[in-house]
């Protein structure tokens, strides 16, 4: 592995960890189940993608690198499906999405299709 490979791999891993951190921050700071799901399905997935790419660069062979990327693909699938299931269950249980009550965002938030 060349120095460039190693540097790129470390850069991707650090960037991935930062996205994980922002995803976790969103999970703590966002106000309801729907907004928290955004944090988990977007920032964390990109974080994992960058992390897996960084690790794949350090892999011993092509098959091993492909296996690491397969982990990302499976997590993407699971989180996409899981997010719909959690959100639709919350909706079916009568949990209403949080609405910002200040400033320009005061009116009702159910928008018809344009």
């Amino acid at each position, binding site marked *: 592995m060349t120095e460039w490979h190693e540097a790129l791999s470390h850069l991707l891993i650090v960037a991935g960890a930062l996205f994980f951190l922002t995803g976790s921050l969103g999970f703590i700071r966002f106000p309801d189940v729907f907004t928290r799901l955004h944090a988990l399905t977007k920032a964390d997935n990109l974080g994992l993608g960058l992390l897996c790419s960084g690790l794949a660069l350090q892999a011993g062979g092509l*098959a091993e690198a492909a296996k690491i990327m397969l982990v990302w693909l499976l997590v993407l699938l699971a989180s996409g499906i899981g997010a719909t299931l959690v959100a639709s269950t919350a909706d079916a249980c009568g949990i209403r999405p949080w609405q910002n009550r200040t400033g320009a965002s005061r009116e009702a938030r159910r928008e018809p299709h344009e």
Partner: protein
Amino acid sequence: MPPTRTDMTRRRLLPTRFGDWRGWAGRLALLALLWWMLGGGEAESWHWGVPAIIAAALVMPTPDLPLRPLAWLRLLTLALWLGLRGAIEVAWLACRPRMQLDTRVIEHRWQRLDDTSGRLFMATLINLLPGTLTVRIDSDRLQVHVLHYRHGIVAMLQRLERHVEALFGGRHRRKESAA
């Protein structure tokens, strides 16, 4: 005499048409690729791998997914780009000292997709794109939660539906091919 359940199962399992052979080849190739990844590319692993692949190809359900490499490539490129934007947007919103979210639930009426697998695929994909989350899938529309509303969201959903239609087919595609 109407076909029995056994006849129908046998018909599904045994390739009878060219299309079925293509389906079998696709499944075997996909499973072989998976085995190659899981086995780390070792030659000895194929002793167990080949029977396992054939057994899995026999019992796995046949996905009703047409093979359209260009459409897949276009959709994957779009999804990766939008996914990157979505993650950056969420990271930015989560890190801002004063959190300002303009959350809404919008309705996307189905305009092109009319089969269940295409709709489910799009509903799952929406969760990975910038600021959108599927809340409910209805027969005539999709309810989407938006983290921070902006005007391009509706156009993005329509664009996405066109891309998914290119993969799964839909009422517009069928009209075009019938004409």
